[in-house]
């Protein structure tokens, strides 16, 4: 084997020193040429190698024939036969891949040796490019079953590189041995001219060795670059693809409007970690680094990819449940639309009775609000955390914003179980911040309701408390709201006990939106009265009777809880002493007793809770 893959070394006579870029370009070119040359010469190298071995074998066989020692001659023939047989086996197995075990072991050993040699070569490049080589990292084991990276192709490239390096190294070793031998043992009796020729030949041999090493290094470097480029490009492509795919799949079509949901936080973090690895990786072209380090990075990336796949599975589960929730939501929407249509139909057929009209409007408003909350809770549940989903695949619906009671409890059939469940939720503590919010609302309402003289009427207080009652989510909130109202009421009463509180008609209307009252009345009051066995229905709407500023809590009496009377009709009913049809609570401005009564009612309302208080109120006014 002579001159396999040899290339010319760099031209030392060049006038200007080449720049790094030019040098690199030239090295790459040389490496490529070296590789092509080596491949082109492979068949001839094999022929030469086989013929050389044959010649040496024939020579040995002849030598065996001339040996006087028969045992030695026989031993020599046997050894020649072994080598010859190995050669034949090798030729036969060249296309069959059926090397014997001994040969495979020998090759494996050689590959291991070359791996070490390659690392040394790699270190040499690092040393050359960046100074001291970095501390070696342990190569992690490759995760089984991972098909993310083109490991097979890279392995083939690596094998080709190792083979080429091995050929070069063996060749160089042989030549170097021969050169050393010739240098140490020059022929005796050479003429001066002969000696010159002899050393010129040796110099040629030396140059060949240098060029061979140079070519092999260039080739190795080129191969390394190719591996890096291939891995780096592939991994970056996979990472980008993964991100794009996750983003695409996370789009959720919601009733024609595309809602692009952010990637789950954990997926984002994982991808960021991968990108971090990539940014530090020698796999990215141009970054450089050792093969071992690259393999370590690949291992880490594979692990990272595996985690992304696991997260993806979780995300798919979530998406599936989101689909189910979306279906449920659509069903609910259809029901609500139908319900609202029914209400609207009913509304159109109504007489100009304001109360019933408002009641229906309030009903629609409430229904839409509940639906909105439900939708919001679903979206929040999906985007925030998969834990919002229960094991059976149903969604943990948020609580009713009016009552604080979960929808699933509200959906339970009426009975003791439902009552107990409702009570449990009602008694749960409310966030302190809501108490603060209510206080601020009360104070703001008082401020807004003050007259120019800084006065506020009693009716406004009751109105404030009632309005707040509709917004609170729990008895505790209710208690806080009423306490604020009562305290304020007492303070104002003490300041101006006899002057009364001029009413602002405009503010009254703003503070007492009938829709809210209707919602409140319908949703809780009626229910509580029904549960308490009373037949009276108290409406929280306050009306003004005449010029004497008597305020009334109007009552509508009917065994079927149907509105019969309100306002003046209710007062008339009282005057008629129709016990069955009256629930009138007069609050007479300037009347201390009526203020005290009002306060007493408010305290009862407060202490007994929203629902019980209204029932209590009904009882009081009935007395």
């Amino acid at each position, binding site marked *: 084997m002579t001159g396999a893959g040899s290339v010319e070394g760099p031209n030392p006579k060049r006038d200007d020193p080449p720049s790094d870029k030019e040098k690199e370009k030239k090295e790459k070119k040389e490496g490529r040429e070296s590789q092509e040359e080596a491949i082109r010469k492979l068949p001839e190298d094999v022929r030469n190698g*086989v013929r050389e071995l044959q010649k040496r074998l024939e020579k040995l066989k002849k030598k065996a024939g001339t040996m006087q020692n028969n045992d030695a001659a026989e031993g020599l023939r046997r050894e020649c036969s072994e080598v010859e047989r190995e050669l034949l086996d090798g030729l036969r197995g060249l*296309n069959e891949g059926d090397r014997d075990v001994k040969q495979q072991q020998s090759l494996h050993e050689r590959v291991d040796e070359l791996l070490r040699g390659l690392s040394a070569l790699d270190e040499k490049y690092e040393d050359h490019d960046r100074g001291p080589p970095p501390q070696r990292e342990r190569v992690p084991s490759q995760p089984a079953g991972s098909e993310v990276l083109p490991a097979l192709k890279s392995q083939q490239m690596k094998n080709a590189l190792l083979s080429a390096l091995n050929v070069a190294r063996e060749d160089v070793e042989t030549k170097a041995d021969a050169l050393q031998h010739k240098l140490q043992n020059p022929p005796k009796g050479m003429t001066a001219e002969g000696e010159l020729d002899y050393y010129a030949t040796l110099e040629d041999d030396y140059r060949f060795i240098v060029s061979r090493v140079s070519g092999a290094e260039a080739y190795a470097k080129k191969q390394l670059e190719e591996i890096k480029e291939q891995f780096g490009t592939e991994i970056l492509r996979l990472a980008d693809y993964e991100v794009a795919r996750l983003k695409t799949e996370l789009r959720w079509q919601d009733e024609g409007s595309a809602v692009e949901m952010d990637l789950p936080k954990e997926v984002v973090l994982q991808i960021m970690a991968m990108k971090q690895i990539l940014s530090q990786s020698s796999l990215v072209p141009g970054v450089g680094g050792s093969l071992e380090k690259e393999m370590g990075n690949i291992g880490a990336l594979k692990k990272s990819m595996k985690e992304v796949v696991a997260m993806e599975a979780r995300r798919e589960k979530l998406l599936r449940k989101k689909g189910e929730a979306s279906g449920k939501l659509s069903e609910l929407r259809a029901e609500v639309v139908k319900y609202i249509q029914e209400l609207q139909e009913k509304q159109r057929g109504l007489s100009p009775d304001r109360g019933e009209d408002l009641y229906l409007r309030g009903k629609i408003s409430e229904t839409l609000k509940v639906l909105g909350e439900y939708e919001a809770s679903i979206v929040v549940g999906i985007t925030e955390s998969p834990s919002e989903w229960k094991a059976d695949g149903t969604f943990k619906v948020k609580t009713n914003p009016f009552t604080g009671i979960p929808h699933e409890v509200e959906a339970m059939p009426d009975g003791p179980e439902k009552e107990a469940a409702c009570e449990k939720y009602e008694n749960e503590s409310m966030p302190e911040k809501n108490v603060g919010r209510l206080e601020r609302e009360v104070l703001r309402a008082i401020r807004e309701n003050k007259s120019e003289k800084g006065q506020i009427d009693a009716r406004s207080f009751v109105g404030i408390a009632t309005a707040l009652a509709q917004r609170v989510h729990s008895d505790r909130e209710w208690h806080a709201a009423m306490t604020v109202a009562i305290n304020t009421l007492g303070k104002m009463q003490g300041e101006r006990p006899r002057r009364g509180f001029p009413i602002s008609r405009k503010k009254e209307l703003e503070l007492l939106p009938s829709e809210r009252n209707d919602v409140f009345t319908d949703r809780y009051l009626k229910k509580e009265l029904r549960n308490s066995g009373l037949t009276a229905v108290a409406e929280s709407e306050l009306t003004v009777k005449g010029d004497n500023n008597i305020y009334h809590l109007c009552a509508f009496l009917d065994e079927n809880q149907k509105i019969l009377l309100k306002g003046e009709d209710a007062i008339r009913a009282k005057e008629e002493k129709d016990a069955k049809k009256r629930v009138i609570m007069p609050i007479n401005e300037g009347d201390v007793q009526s203020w005290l009564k009002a306060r007493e009612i408010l305290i009862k309302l407060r202490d007994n809770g929203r629902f019980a208080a209204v029932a209590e109120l009904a009882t009081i006014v009935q007395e």
Partner: protein
Amino acid sequence: MPDPHTDNTHIEELIDGSPVLTEEEKAELRRILPTLEGEKVIALKRLLEEEPHTLEELMERTIQKATPEALQQFLLFLHSCGRKLREVEERAERMEEETSSSVLFTEFS
């Protein structure tokens, strides 16, 4: 004149000279050759004739078929054979020198 198609002598020559058969295979063929008759002999002969007759022929055939990677691997293997052969050569030289010394010693003594 023996039938050239079933001439066992010619087949034996083909077996002995085959560069593709191992010694074991050759021995096995020689053993079973006398037991073969008629078409079996003809088939064996045709098979042997189709195989490369010389190492050179075998080499050319394999080189034509082999991939560059396989050739690279084979070059490594050739080098390994070469080293092994060098050891044999060195031993042979030592044996020759020892034999010469022994002859000289005998002559002197």
